[in-house]
């Protein structure tokens, strides 16, 4: 019997991989409210966080959870909450606050079938557009996802890193299949993956500190509540000290800053993986659990000599348009594989040179999309019937 | 429930299709008049002990028990 290093290998659920990733990244505070299919994240952290000196709190609802992680983040903690569709909808107002007040935190949405309560236990990927546009007002957002536990661990760490780097809430938009699927996860040793710590201001006590004045590199060093700088945090349009302002110039600059600091960083933030794309004539584009089925199709058809490739997106927002455009160039056709009515499909069409060659293979009935489902669409496109 | 003349005319009818074998009726029958079948479903095992108090009907979480007149079997 072969025995691998049990200490750092675990056979766990995707939701638990998120937990491991968050702990690796330095999670200090979690607030949440149970909801299928995300609950295991809370349950695991209820035990693991205090064991490491962190704190877990079950709040009275999702709104309170989102608010609490913002509050705790301002004291210097890395914070997270997790939910699913209905709870994510409830969090939209406070999520917008985190955007506006530039508070780093991570919000996990383990997607299930919607709209409304839909089906609590089945998979979907239909909150992609909501992640981008769910809160009111012009804004930008980072949303990440993954299809397997190793990636999920890594991308969870990156979610925290990006939250710190860009001072923004980051959405980890996974789905029920990834969340509940168990496979082996190898947890890297400390230091193996980069962990971005909170950038604290070097301005000493007594010197005027500007919590909302970006440095030259665009970053905004923070000062924790309880520290030597007393400033103001608000969801109103505010000046560089954090005080409310109705000056149109202040509003213009702030809103532009909030959008640009993310949208202009598309290339930096884009995470994706190319499988057999180089010589591919047919390109699949997928993400989350559906990317597994897509990869299955690619491997199956490659064996039959079909030149197919897969572009798996780990960053959904800002949409990695450049990667999509580059990978799509010259392909005979592009097939987007997802579990909704075509949310990323529409973005791909906007991004590529040849939108008329973009097709959609999807499911939105709660059943996990299979390689067979994708195969049928491929046959159809190729004029082979179903 | 309709006014009932002769209590002995009542019988405890258990809908095995709805019974989930929770045991509540059996455990809480004041007279021990109920038993279990081989799939642990409740049965009115000792009608003679039964005082037709109706507690089993009131407490069955699965609405599987009815105290009813002998004729009105459904």
């Amino acid at each position, binding site marked *: *019997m*072969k*025995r*691998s290093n*049990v200490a750092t*290998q*675990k*056979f766990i659920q995707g939701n638990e991989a998120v937990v491991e990733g968050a702990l690796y990244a330095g999670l200090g505070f979690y607030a949440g409210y149970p909801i*299928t299919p995300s609950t295991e994240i809370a349950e695991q952290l209820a035990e693991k966080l205090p064991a490491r000196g962190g704190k877990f709190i079950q709040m009275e609802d999702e709104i309170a959870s989102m608010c609490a992680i913002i509050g705790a983040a301002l004291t210097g903690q890395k914070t997270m909450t997790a939910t699913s569709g209905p709870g994510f909808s409830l969090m939209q107002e406070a999520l917008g606050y985190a955007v506006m007040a530039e508070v780093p935190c991570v919000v996990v949405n383990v997607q299930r079938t919607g709209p409304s309560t839909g*089906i*609590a*236990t089945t998979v979907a990927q239909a909150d992609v557009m909501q992640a981008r546009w769910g809160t009111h007002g012009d804004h930008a957002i980072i949303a990440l996802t993954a299809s397997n536990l190793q990636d999920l661990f890594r991308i969870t760490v990156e979610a925290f890193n990006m939250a710190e780097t860009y001072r923004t809430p980051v959405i980890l938009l996974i789905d029920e*299949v990834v969340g*509940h*699927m*168990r*496979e*082996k996860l190898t947890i890297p040793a400390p230091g193996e993956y980069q962990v971005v710590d909170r950038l604290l201001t070097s301005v000493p006590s007594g010197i005027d500190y500007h919590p909302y004045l970006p440095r030259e590199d665009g970053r905004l060093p923070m000062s924790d509540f309880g520290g030597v700088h007393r400033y103001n945090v608000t969801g109103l349009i505010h000046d560089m000290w954090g005080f409310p302002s109705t000056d149109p110039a202040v509003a213009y600059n702030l809103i532009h800053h909030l959008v640009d600091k993310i949208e202009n960083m598309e290339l930096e933030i884009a995470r994706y993986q190319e499988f057999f794309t180089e010589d591919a004539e047919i390109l699949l584009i997928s993400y989350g*659990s559906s990317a*597994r*089925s897509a*990869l*299955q199709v690619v*491997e199956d058809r490659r064996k039959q000599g079909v030149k197919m490739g897969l572009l798996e997106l780990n960053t959904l927002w800002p949409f990695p348009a450049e990667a999509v455009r580059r990978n799509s160039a010259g392909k005979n056709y592009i097939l987007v594989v997802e579990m909704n009515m075509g949310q990323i499909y529409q973005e791909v069409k906007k991004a590529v040179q040849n939108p008329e060659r973009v097709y959609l293979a999807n499911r939105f009935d709660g059943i*996990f999309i*299979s*390689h*067979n489902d994708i195969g049928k669409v491929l046959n159809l496109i190729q004029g082979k019937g179903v | 429930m309709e006014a009932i003349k002769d209590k002995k005319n009542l019988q405890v009818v258990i809908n095995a299709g709805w019974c989930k074998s929770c045991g509540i009726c059996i455990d809480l029958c004041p007279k021990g008049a109920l038993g279990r079948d081989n799939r642990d479903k409740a049965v009115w095992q000792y009608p003679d002990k039964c005082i037709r108090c109706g507690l089993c009907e009131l407490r069955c979480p699965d609405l599987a028990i009815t105290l009813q007149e002998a004729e009105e079997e459904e």
Partner: protein
Amino acid sequence: MNTQSFVFTGSGGQGVITAAIILGEAAAIHEGLNAVQTQVYGPEARGGATRADVIISTEPIHFPKVVNANVLVCLTQEAYDKFGRIVQPGGLLIVDSLYVRATKNTEARQVMLPMYETTKKEIGNPVVFNICVLGCVLALTWVVTPDSVLSALKTKIAPKYVDMNSKALKLGLDMGEKWRASLGPVAAQKEAAKIKKS
């Protein structure tokens, strides 16, 4: 072995998901294989038919759900009625003889064993029913070693329960072996050969 797929079905309380997890963990952590485990929850927290899939392979596993199972286990009639068809021709269909009246003509080999009753009788506690079932599956497939399963088990349960679980596993292994033996030497040999191939 290249890839083997298992589907455990039953009702919520029977521990089918746990059985699947332990099998997966035994393969992935203790035998260095690839393993993916998924499940289907009913609309109900419990009750209804639960299904847990495990795919074990020497290759990377992409599609994580079982389409045609090499081995299907059914522990309730409802589960059998709902999932009975997903076992592949020539596959193995293991049912509990108390709970399931197997009626379907499948091209799978049907194994009906009194796993529940035996567990209750021999161990006294039906809580380890699922481990006994797992023992049967091991005996009929040898997909991983009982040792690996025990190692996986130990990470999941309190030390005081290890003994009871080992016994249940042994019980299942024995029942499985006995069933194979009952086929007579030639059939058993063939059976053993099939399992190796699958």
